[in-house]
């Protein structure tokens, strides 16, 4: 406990921690969750809109998705997010022919004769859509583009009414694979992007009532806060961890190694101090936010502990994981390589396309669960079992990394492990 307090004091007084803490608060401020920019209000009947929701109805999804694919095919420019970042894909002639075959199968009207090889006409269609030469523009790369006169709608697309959901899903999977993944036609995104229907007043009211009864307002706010805090806690805690461990260089390590303390106690105290430190600004914000909501909704209408419950259940495992990555890889290598490793994990997690939003499914090793909505309580309750599993896994990974750190530290203090990443060890200097 004494060592924990001393390590905590060292972390709290370090410049890198102060910068990380400032970064955490600043991020919350810029994202509009500290202080909160909106309050939860009861929906009024007769409003213009209550938002939209995914219907999951194949009858709605299929024609919308097929038409979207056709439009992108027509200009040979597909919007994808393969690594989370926007990427426009242009298909080569051979792939255009294959995509044309998919379009042809989806449509009752279109034969994409602008891209067909001579004599290669899909047999499955009866109708044809003629495109005259003026509507086609040859590009430098050999592809063609359909020119639609300004103000006119693109060529009409009629979805094949005989298409089954199974076959449609297969064709969309082929299209997505051809585009390199991350397109609107991937299995994950298709159900979300297409077939959206308006939320009714009754549904909006039910969601509100669930938010009131289950979340007591602050639960919903805390979820949105957790969503943003997860993003920042998935990255920044690695910095104090790396810098604290790097401070053991310059002959200080041997001073620590020859002390009586066990490796387990030393590493555990350090880990707990680092995690406590990064959670302090979060917990302070939680307290302030709870106070704000008391003023907004009244003390009797909120769950006064909601923010703290989410801090420990949702945010803490993320902070533990990024701290443990910093602790382990810095102890192992004596270099800041942990920052790059955590950055990679963070990047894959936050910008990795599929599964970014938890209501699309929480992946087991997702360090940053997302719930970028104020409310959506039912959706939260639906994915809660997955989220609990995820949080346990992430916490376990952190504990495992700490255990590995203990092992590495123990081996290093006995001279059993020398890891040199950037420079060759000099035997002579050790003799």
């Amino acid at each position: 406990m004494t060592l924990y307090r001393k390590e905590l004091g060292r972390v709290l007084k370090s410049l890198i921690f102060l910068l990380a803490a400032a970064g955490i608060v600043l991020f919350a401020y810029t994202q509009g969750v500290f202080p909160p920019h909106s309050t939860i209000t009861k929906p009024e009947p007769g409003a213009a809109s209550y938002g939209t929701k995914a219907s999951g109805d194949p009858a709605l999804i299929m024609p919308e998705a097929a038409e979207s694919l056709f439009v992108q095919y027509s200009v040979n420019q597909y919007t994808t997010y393969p690594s989370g970042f926007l990427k426009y894909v242009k298909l080569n002639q051979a792939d255009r022919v294959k995509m044309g075959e998919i379009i042809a199968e989806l449509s009752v009207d279109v034969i994409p004769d602008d891209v067909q090889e001579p004599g290669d006409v899909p047999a499955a269609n009866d109708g044809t859509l003629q495109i005259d030469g003026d509507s086609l523009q040859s590009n430098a790369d050999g592809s063609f583009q359909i020119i639609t006169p300004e103000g006119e709608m693109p060529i009409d697309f009629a979805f094949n009414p005989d298409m089954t959901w199974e076959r449609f899903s297969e064709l969309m999977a082929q299209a997505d694979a051809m585009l390199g993944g991350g397109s609107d036609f991937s299995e994950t995104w298709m159900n979300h992007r297409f077939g959206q229907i308006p939320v009714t007043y009754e549904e909006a009211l039910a969601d509100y009532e669930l938010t009131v009864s289950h979340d007591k307002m602050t639960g919903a706010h805390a979820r949105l806060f957790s969503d943003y805090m997860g993003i920042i806690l998935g990255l920044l805690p690695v910095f104090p961890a790396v810098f604290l461990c790097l401070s053991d260089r310059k002959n200080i390590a041997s001073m620590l190694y020859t002390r009586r303390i066990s490796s387990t106690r030393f590493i555990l105290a350090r880990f707990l101090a680092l995690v406590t430190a990064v959670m302090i600004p979060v917990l302070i914000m939680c307290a302030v936010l709870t106070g704000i909501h008391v003023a907004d909704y009244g003390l009797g209408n909120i769950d006064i502990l909601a923010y703290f419950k989410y801090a420990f259940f949702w945010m803490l495992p993320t902070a533990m994981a990024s701290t443990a990555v910093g602790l382990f890889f810095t102890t192992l290598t004596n270099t800041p390589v942990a920052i790059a490793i955590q950055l990679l994990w963070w990047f894959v997690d936050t910008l990795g396309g599929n599964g970014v939003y938890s209501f699309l499914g929480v992946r087991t090793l997702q360090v940053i669960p997302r719930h970028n909505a104020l409310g959506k309580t039912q959706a939260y309750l639906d994915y809660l079992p997955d989220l609990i599993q995820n949080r346990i896994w992430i916490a376990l990974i952190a504990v495992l990394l700490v255990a590995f750190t203990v092992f590495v530290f123990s081996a290093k203090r006995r001279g059993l492990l020398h890891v040199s990443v950037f420079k060759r060890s000099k035997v002579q200097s050790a003799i």
Partner: protein
Amino acid sequence: MPESNIQIRNLSKSYGRKQALCGLNLDIASGMFGLLGRNGAGKTTLMKTIATLLKKQEGDIAICGVPVEKAAEIRKIIGYLPQDFNMYGSMTVSQALDYLGVLSGMSKAQRYDRISILLKQVNLIEHSGKKVRLLSGGMKQRLGIAQALLHDPKVLIVDEPTAGLDPEERVRFRNLLCEVAENKTVILSTHIVGDVEATCEEIAILDDGRLLFGGTVSGLCNMAEGSVYTAEITQNELPKIRAAYTITATLSQGKSSTVRFLSPDSRPAIGKPVTPGAEDAYILCLSKAGKGGNLHDAV
């Protein structure tokens, strides 16, 4: 012979193909013990192995009867001052000692008492609130010895502590080591013969991981009896003398020089024999080893 606190038997250690220690046997009793040798002789490897920082490959080491494999037990009874001692620069002197005291498993009261005593002993009491990064080289070394003594260890391992210190600080540090050596075993590793001569009774000389000499300083000097000469020569004669003998000291006086040189095999044509000093004997020992001789067998 006093009772041995550290027994080293057939100790070997290598880094890849480089043999750092080769079948070393050594007994170290209470008091100051000097470990001499060139850079790369194996001194630091030996110190680190005793301090549990390196794993031995062959042989045995026992410290106060505890085998070195029991690292947790050994750490309770040793204090270690590494070469180029350093500590977190943002800590003050007393904070640094308090932190290391916690790592040594000391209670708050124990830390308070020991830190006060040690700061007085190493003459840092007035600098207890000073940041470590602001300490001079000498003050830092004194902090180093204080931290090594913090938990009152039975064995103190001090590796090249005076390197980089000015002469005044060196003398002060040597005196400090002698003061703290009471009722302890202090192993002082250095390549500065003067430090060992001034502080240690028992010494060992290592070369290429092997023991060249083990015994007392006077024993070492006795071995060089009749091998050390001094002569006054002209500057023109100096290259000839240098080619023929190992010179241990040269004092220039205008056009002439007084040289002190070694001639172990025969009486030289010039010069007169003098009483050998520890440095003469040490260099003679190393030069004989360079020719394949081993003085240890003769001791």
